[in-house]
């Protein structure tokens, strides 16, 4: 196991992460989804010891957490990077004195591939270029794990697709893994092996993506149809102005085929879990 979190708790005045246990196995991409403020960033910061946990255990590469183990971890934060008055050459100079495995050759190849100018201050780079730079920095010290907090937010679909391809290539050796937090769940539909859904500091589910797709379906019912619908089959529902969105177990799918209007996405499931009501 590359990352293992056991019963992690972190309390704030108005929010808490409660009893979080997750695993990031070798060779897998694990997606962390949830609404803004669900606790994704807090969990990532606790894993990296950027925040102190109140209780629980974090194991990296099956060992108790220690600073040096971060040598094998590449990080991208949503809102934190280096001093933006630096340029690419400065970053290379700093990083080769921080990471033992830093490869300037690999780093500059990324820069060439991404057309990132070497002498331009990073605050003058576009959002997409900056994000690519952050990912290149995370990859250039040959880590075994990538921990990424919203790495694709604010990026156009083409750049997002390129970046997601990089993550897929990264885990191809079956040893590396990726923990990817995002609220753009469509990113995960194509690349994630497992999905962890956090809401209000608690894990709602932690399942292989394949199972999620096999277990849940969202159907749409008119108000009359909803009134007559077998309520026992409903996991969650959301009342809209014109219809009801209803989350049901996929085993019941055949009974309700006529109500399936669209392919169920992670977004639909997440929305219904967060905003939906119990029967």
């Amino acid at each position, binding site marked *: 196991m590359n990352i293992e979190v056991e019963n992690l708790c972190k309390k704030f005045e108005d929010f808490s992460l409660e009893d979080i246990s997750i695993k990031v196995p070798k060779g897998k991409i694990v997606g962390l989804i949830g609404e803004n403020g669900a606790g994704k960033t807090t969990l990532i*910061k606790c894993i990296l010891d950027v925040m102190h946990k109140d209780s629980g255990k974090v194991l990296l590469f099956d060992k108790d957490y220690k600073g040096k183990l971060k040598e094998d971890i590449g990080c991208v934060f949503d809102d*934190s990077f*280096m001093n933006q008055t630096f340029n690419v050459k400065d970053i290379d100079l700093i990083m080769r004195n921080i990471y033992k495995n830093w490869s300037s050759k690999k780093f500059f190849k990324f820069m060439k591939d991404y057309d990132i100018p070497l002498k331009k201050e990073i605050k003058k780079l576009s959002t997409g270029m900056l994000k690519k730079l952050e990912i290149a920095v995370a990859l250039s010290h040959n880590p075994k794990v990538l921990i990424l907090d919203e790495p694709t937010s604010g990026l156009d679909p083409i750049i997002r697709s390129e970046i997601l391809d990089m993550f897929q290539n990264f885990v191809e050796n079956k040893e590396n893994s990726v923990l990817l937090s995002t609220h753009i769940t469509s990113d995960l539909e194509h690349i994630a092996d497992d999905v962890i859904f956090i809401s209000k500091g608690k894990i709602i589910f932690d399942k292989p993506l394949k199972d999620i797709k096999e277990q849940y379906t969202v159907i749409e019912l008119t108000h009359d149809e909803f009134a007559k619908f077998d309520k026992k089959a409903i996991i969650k529902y959301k009342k809209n102005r014109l219809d009801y969105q209803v989350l049901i177990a996929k085993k019941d799918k055949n009974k309700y085929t006529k109500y399936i209007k669209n392919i169920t996405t992670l977004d639909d499931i997440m929305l219904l879990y967060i905003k939906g009501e119990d029967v």
Partner: protein
Amino acid sequence: MKGLIIKDLLFIKNTWKNLILIFIGSLLLSIALGNYLLAIVCVPVMLLTSGINTFQTDEFYNSDAYTLSYPLSRKEIVTSKFLFTLVMLGISTYIGCMIYVLIYFIIHPGYNGLNTYMLRELLMLEISGLLVDSIFYPIIYKYGCEKSRFVLMSIIILLLGIGSILSVYINVFKIDAIDWNAVINFIEQYGLFSLTVLVVIMSIISYILSLLAYRHKDY
């Protein structure tokens, strides 16, 4: 640790244009005043207190969380900041001496106001700069840059207030047990040495307090 020291040095390197402007300004002021002390000490003291600026920039660009993702312990991160300050002491002393030489041989050849007294003043001011750093660092580690200014100001104003109230009732200059002439003589003779000892002690305390503050800090 070396990487973090280089990071801070690169930040200072990126401010070289401002430092040159400060030097030119202080030099012009010195020429007008007929005393070159300001030109000699201005840039070195600015450099020595630049550690505080590095905290500010890190806070401005929100890079503290990122720094904690490096394969370094919190102790190493704090130690690197203090080592950076020591490196800056060396660099600023070197630059101060270079300015001294520049003035003596090029700007004002044979100027007789330049002497060992002026170099002593340079050292005194540099050590005072270190004193400022050692007071600021643990407060910044604890409260961050924005809040630390207010924290420090409130402490200073509070101490001044207490001192002023006490001075109404106790006139220290009239206490027979204190020989003020001896105190002044001591400062004149051993001022630099005493200040150095004070700064060493303060820096050690500052380092320990910074470690304690940073150990519990969340970003």
